[in-house]
């Protein structure tokens, strides 16, 4: 009997607290929170997803502008020297948004699907940014485990609390975003060029036109088309990594290595261009493994950081284009 009363009591308290919470939420909604989304790192890849999600949530949002010199300089000045270029660029975007939004959204991606990870710096990104930009409050920094449904739900719940919107609405928005991301065209596959190369690297180096100095347009101007790893099916990549002693635990290692090997083995490409940022720990291994495994195959590594000169890059691309041309003749 007492037990029942106890239970009823508990439920009662819980419902009261829900009501209270709801009250809270309404107050927050009235204030209307502005969320800032830095346009660095994986934003390039998930732009469709993020845009849909934000649209569906119907909240005020400010995006940073495309990367430019000023953003890079701000990033370099606020980030530790040892970090890589994309990290510095992300810092720059965060500095740009710092005083324009109530909440700064910094994804802390701990795990991707199949419990693959990206890079330790992604797990500590909020700390780096908070310390570098001196913005300690108003940052969305909870961890995102994308491999577990429950964790994603949890993330959405927290996010909706912070944004002051309904949890179900957030869930609906998330689902819509997933669908629109699934339908969107991912990656690049140019078909109308005499040559085609596999453009490998992290998406933030491939799609950030400022960081890579318009690499794709440059390649096009030499008659070189581009295919990126998104265009290779997952099971093909999986097939290529089976012989390894250890299953790679980095998402982009698996993607680039797997796709690269698949494309080379099936003779779908004329060469590989790997765009990588200086001191990237993942690329240092991926490049070496790929190079060791494909043997004598045109392979150009372009390293970028904040002081890479455009002239040197142009020379290398031109020479690579010439080499492809000559290989075809012989």
């Amino acid at each position: 009997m007492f037990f029942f009363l106890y239970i009823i009591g508990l439920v009662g308290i819980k419902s009261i607290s829900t009501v209270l919470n709801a009250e809270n939420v309404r107050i927050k909604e009235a204030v209307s929170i502005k969320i800032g989304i830095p346009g660095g790192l994986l934003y390039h890849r998930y732009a469709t997803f993020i845009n849909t999600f934000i649209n569906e949530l119907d909240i005020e949002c400010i995006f940073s502008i495309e990367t430019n010199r000023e953003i890079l300089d701000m990033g370099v000045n606020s980030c530790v020297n040892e970090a890589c270029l994309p990290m510095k660029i992300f810092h720059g975007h965060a500095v740009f948004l710092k005083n324009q939004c109530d909440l700064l959204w910094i994804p802390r991606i701990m795990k991707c699907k199949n419990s693959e990870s990206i890079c330790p710096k992604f797990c500590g990104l909020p700390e780096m940014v908070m310390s570098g930009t001196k913005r300690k409050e108003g940052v969305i920094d909870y961890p995102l485990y994308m491999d577990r449904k429950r964790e994603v739900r949890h993330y959405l719940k927290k996010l909706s609390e912070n944004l002051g919107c309904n949890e179900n609405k957030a869930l609906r928005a998330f689902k819509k975003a997933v669908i629109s991301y699934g339908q969107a065209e991912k990656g690049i596959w140019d078909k109308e060029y005499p040559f085609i190369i596999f453009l490998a690297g992290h998406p933030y180096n491939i799609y950030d036109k400022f960081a890579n100095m318009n690499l794709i347009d440059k390649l096009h101007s030499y008659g070189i088309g581009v295919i990126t790893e998104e265009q290779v099916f997952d099971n093909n990549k999986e097939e290529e990594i089976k012989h390894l002693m250890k299953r790679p635990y980095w998402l982009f290692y698996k993607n680039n290595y797997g796709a690269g090997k698949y494309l080379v083995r099936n003779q779908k490409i004329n060469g590989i261009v790997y765009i990588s940022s200086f001191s990237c720990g993942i690329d240092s291994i991926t490049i070496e493994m790929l190079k060791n495994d494909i043997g004598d195959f045109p392979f150009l590594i372009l390293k970028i950081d904040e002081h890479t000169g455009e002239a040197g890059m142009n020379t290398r691309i031109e020479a690579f284009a010439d080499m492809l041309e000559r290989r075809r003749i012989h």
Partner: protein
Amino acid sequence: MYYMGIDVGSVSTNVVLLDGCLEVIEEIYLQSKGSPIKSICEGLEKLKGKYDSKQISGVGTTGSGRNIAAAVTGADIIKNEITTHSIAASYMDAEVQTILEIGGQDSKVILLRNGVISDFAMNTVCAAGTGSFLDRQAERLGIAIGELGNMALKSKVPVRIAGRCAVFAETDIIHKQQLGYEKEDLIAGLCYALVRNYLSNLCKGKEIKDKVFFQGGVAANQGIKKAFEDILDKEIIVPEHFKVMGAIGAAILSKEALENERKKTMFKGFNILKGKISTDSFECQDCPNHCEVIRIYSNNTMIGCFSDRCGKYQISDAKSKI
């Protein structure tokens, strides 16, 4: 009562003499030219005629060659250049809170609070923020290093030189030179680039507070001083003895150390110059480290031994007691 300070750096060797009230009475600035022992002897030679060995009551050495200098002269204290620079600066002016030091091969920033070092940073890897980079570029542009500062001051529109790294900056200078920019503007741009490099390499996250001292060999360059003033928006003070601050600090420390421990100096006297100071080096084959061991002899007795990792060649009695 005189205290001697010797700063053996990679580019210059400085010797100073302070009197009992710690006023600078002698200041010698010599090029190291790759042979620190020779330049130490040269410095001592200049003092020898004027002073008696007995008048020297303390010797301190600093700089990258501090150990060699100590072995040759018999120093009372051997200190790193970061500490000596800060000691000298805070002695000159107790209100100094920031020291910017740019030397030939390295650069440092030292933050002082209440006269005590609270933080510092030192750059040894990247040459873009050091004097040798400036030397090299001056040479490339065909300008004497002494004129660099004055030329930079004449510039109205400094050229923006890209790149945070010496190699890339040089490429950019060549490029801009070929585009036909004025020499003055290029040099001013170079000064700004160096200061920007310095600040982003060393001063990130460090609060630069007044008063700011700028010392080291490069402080002679007015262009760099102006660039610092513009970028930091602060008054920059170049102390009178900016070139020899390290040596001054070492001399002050030698006084402090001897007074604290109530000891007499170990200075070997100017007579060491009479004897023959020689060095030899050999590659030790006892382990795969293959250390290149250097030994210093004075009249064929070993007075010092360096760069053996395991320390077995060094004169030490602690080991024999085990």
